[in-house]
Every structure is written in C-alpha cells, then in structure tokens.
C-alpha cells in the first residue's frame, strides 16, 4: 500500500486487476476508513462503496440504485434476467425461479451431489495428490447445475469453459467473450427449441417453458437470458467458497477435528467460510437521481460498485473481521447479496459446500498443502482460487 491515501487508492481501483485483487483486503480497509464512497478513474469512471451499511443500502434501495443498465463493470455484452431487472418485474421472475431453489427443493439433490463428489475423488484418491480446483471443485459444479437447469449435459465441459471466459475476459479479451457468448447462446437456444417439442421435464428450463408473467409465456430469448445468469452464478462462486474453505482447513488441522467431532456447527461454520471468501467481491448499480452518499455527490446515470468483499470485512459489524472464526454468530454477512437480488442459489450452494467439505474430511482426512503455498486468484466481480495442490495418504475408491 505504501503511503498512498485511501483516496489515491480508490482512484486506481480496478477489480479486474490481478495485482490489486489477489489480496484486496488491506486496500478495502483503507477505503472504509479514509474514503468510504470514492471514485475510481478506471473503466470510464465509477463510484466505489466499501462500508457495510452503505453497501447494504445500495443493494436494498432499488429505486435509487438500479440494475436495469447492468450489474458489471465493464458492461456485460448480454442483458440477463432477472439480475438486470428491478422490482417489481424482477420479483415476478424470482417468484417463478425460487420454487426450484428452496431448502426443500435443493435437499432432493443430496444423493446426486454426494455421488458426483465421490466419483471425482475416486479418480485421484489412489495417487495421494491432487489439484482440488481442477480435479474436484471445478468439474463438480456443472454436473449438479446443468441437469438442474435442463442444459445439455454432453456440452458440460464446453459450457464451463465458455462461462469462465465470459466471466473473466471482459476487461482483456472482449472478442473472445463475444465468441463464447455466441457459442453458449447456440447450445442453449437449440436446447430450448428442442425442449418445446418434447414432453415436460421437471427442471428449471421445464418450469420456464410452463410459466407466464402477466399472462405472457417466456420467449426462447427470455429463457436463454435466465439460464445464462444461473450458469454464471452457480459455477464460479460456489467453487470459490469450497476452495477457500479447503485451504483454511488444510492450514488449521485442529479446526478440522472440531468440525468432524461436532464441536463446531456445520451451518455456522459454512456461513463464516462464505463471509470470509465473499466470492462476489462487488456488483454495480446505476444511480437513478442525484444523491449524496457519505459525503460524495452522485449524479443520475453514474455507476457505483458496492463491494460485498469489503462490507463483509467491516470491523464495525464483524469483530476481528480478517479472522475466519467458525463459531461466529451472529453473522449478518452479505456475501449472497442484499435486497431483491439476494442469491437465488444460496440454499443449493450451502448444501454443496457442506457435502463437499464433509466428504473431503472423511476421505482425504490428512490432506496437506505445501508450507509455502500462496494462493492465486482469478479476479473480477467474482474472485476465486486458481489452484489448490494437496497431498494425502492414498485411499480406496468407494466400494473397494
């Protein structure tokens, strides 16, 4: 950080910069204490909000801070539903989608998730070493999310790669992003057209084909834009929490034991892993009318990035905020967002994380990371670990 003031840091702030975002938390701390609503000169200029209460207000007050011009910086080339809508229209979409993401609904996926995790671990457990990012966490999530959506499972690998490119490439490879976007649109639009001619299937696509808003059925394009955001949300962010949790547990073997023995509550621990990771570091809103916010003057049409990653480290709400305290309660983190757009998949994510961590502790119980391991992150609005190399005592495949 050197001698730069919070104001100077905010001016240079770029959430797509690996250099800044590999370890962003000291920078956020300077924002919160010196420049809680500042202005970055990057990407055409945008305001940056960093304190918990302010960030929460931005995401709750949709009349003043709108999503309809997009929620990313730089702009995402595709509008998506319902993330790029405001209430009340947004709520009409969500009421339909929510039905597939309730606690009760996602609980029916438990055996499927467990099976997919065991299958992936079987692939490397005999070798005694693995990259838990490439061999477990990243391949896992598409096998859960794509069937839930109704996206074609045979395109799983390709869809994951395209989503990765579209998530990360907006600042550096806009042509690649456009190509990936066209490719993914091709696959999904074909699937939607095909499903219109088939008997109903009980998945998200089936539900959208069967639903209406204000008496009007969804067009193929509406459905495509909806499936796309669930893909964006469902893969990358959950991976980020899983990997951060696995790294933490590798470095804190005594904590593993407290989880396995039941001394620590899994749900409480998982909320803390989610807060500590904050896989979505920030999202944009667009100011709808001139307004003052913590001394800063915002003009109608200005863009503002609310930093979930900073809000969740705000010491005024979370004592010892930089520590991962697995018995932290209460834990009013906003890692899943706040207000109308609160994460649709949060119940599924919690379940996936819990099953994954329990299974790793049961099957790779003594896994270790190298003492000098320094995580590197893929960055942007979403931030997640690239690689997690571990070794462990080789074990047997399930059923052996």
């Amino acid at each position: 950080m050197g001698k730069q003031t919070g104001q100077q840091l905010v001016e240079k702030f770029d959430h797509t910069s690996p250099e800044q975002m590999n370890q962003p938390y000291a920078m956020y701390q300077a924002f919160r204490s010196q420049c809680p609503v500042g202005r970055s000169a990057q990407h055409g200029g945008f305001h940056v909000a960093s304190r918990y209460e302010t960030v929460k207000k931005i995401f709750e007050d949709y009349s003043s801070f709108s999503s309809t011009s997009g929620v990313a910086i730089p702009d995402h080339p595709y509008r998506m539903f319902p993330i790029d809508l405001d209430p009340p229209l947004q709520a009409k979409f969500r009421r339909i989608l929510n039905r597939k993401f309730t606690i009760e609904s996602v609980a029916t996926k438990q055996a499927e998730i467990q099976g997919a995790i065991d299958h992936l671990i079987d692939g490397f457990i005999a070798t005694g070493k693995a990259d838990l990012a490439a061999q477990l966490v990243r391949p896992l999530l598409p096998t859960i999310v794509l069937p839930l959506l109704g996206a074609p499972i045979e395109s799983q690998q390709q869809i994951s790669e395209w989503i990765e490119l579209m998530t990360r490439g907006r600042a550096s490879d806009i042509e690649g992003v456009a190509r990936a976007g066209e490719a993914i649109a091709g696959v999904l639009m074909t699937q939607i057209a095909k499903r219109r001619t088939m008997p109903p299937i009980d998945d998200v696509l089936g539900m959208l084909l069967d639903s209406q808003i204000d008496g009007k059925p969804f067009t193929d394009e509406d459905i495509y834009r909806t499936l796309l955001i669930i893909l964006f949300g469902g893969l990358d962010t959950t991976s980020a929490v899983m990997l951060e949790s696995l790294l933490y547990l590798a470095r804190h073997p005594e904590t593993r034991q407290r989880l396995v023995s039941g001394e620590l509550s899994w749900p409480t621990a998982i909320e803390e892993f989610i807060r500590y990771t904050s896989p979505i570091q920030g999202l944009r809103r667009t100011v709808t009318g001139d307004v003052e916010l913590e001394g800063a003057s915002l003009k109608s049409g200005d863009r503002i990035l609310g930093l979930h990653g900073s809000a969740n480290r705000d010491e005024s709400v979370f004592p010892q905020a930089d520590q991962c305290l697995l018995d932290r309660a209460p834990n009013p983190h906003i890692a899943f967002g706040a207000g109308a757009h609160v994460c649709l998949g949060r119940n599924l994510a919690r379940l996936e994380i819990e099953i994954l961590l329990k299974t790793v502790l049961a099957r790779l119980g003594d896994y270790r990371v190298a003492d000098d391991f320094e995580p590197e992150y893929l960055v942007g609005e979403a931030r997640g670990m690239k690689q997690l190399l571990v070794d462990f005592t080789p074990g047997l495949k399930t059923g052996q």
Partner: protein
Amino acid sequence: MIQITYVEHNGIEHRVDLAIGTTLMDGAKDNMIPGIDADCGGACACATCHVFFDAADKVRVGEPGSQESDMLEVLEERHDSSRLSCQVRVAEALAGLVVKLPASQR
C-alpha cells in the same frame, strides 16, 4: 409487547408476543414461523413475506404505501387486505391481531 397470532395456510396457529416498533416480518422470523420467506430481508423488494387479515382488521393495519402496492401486484393470491409483513410496524393498536399466511409461501 403485544400478542399477535400467526395462522399458517393449513390452520396451525402460533401465538407470540412482539415488541412495539418491530415488524410483523421480524416477529415471524424471530419465532421461526413457517411461511414467511422474506428473501430480501425487509427491503420491500421481493414479496415473499405476504400476509393478509380479516376484513375487520384492515383499517387498523392500514394501507400499503406506493412501493409496497407495486410489489403486491406481483402476488398470485392477493387479498383485499394483503400487506407485506416487512412493512407493517407492530403498534399498541394491533394488540390481538390475527395474521394469515398464504399457501403460496409454502
């Protein structure tokens, strides 16, 4: 504190004491009453904390504000007395109120 009764869509009743100044949504969440999802946490932005009342209670509960009215348009099973429970403050005048929960939130 005043006493409020929440009635689930299947008729199950929950009689609870709520502090003045909280909301009917807070009361349901704090007492773990099923049927109030309150996804947005009370920002009047998701319409998942819908409740309704007997016709006789409509006046003392009061009318929805304009943002709340927009959100009530989202509901499939709207009643004449429908409100979002995050927008109804607990006051002395509501003592003994019966709050009904819709089937669509379960």
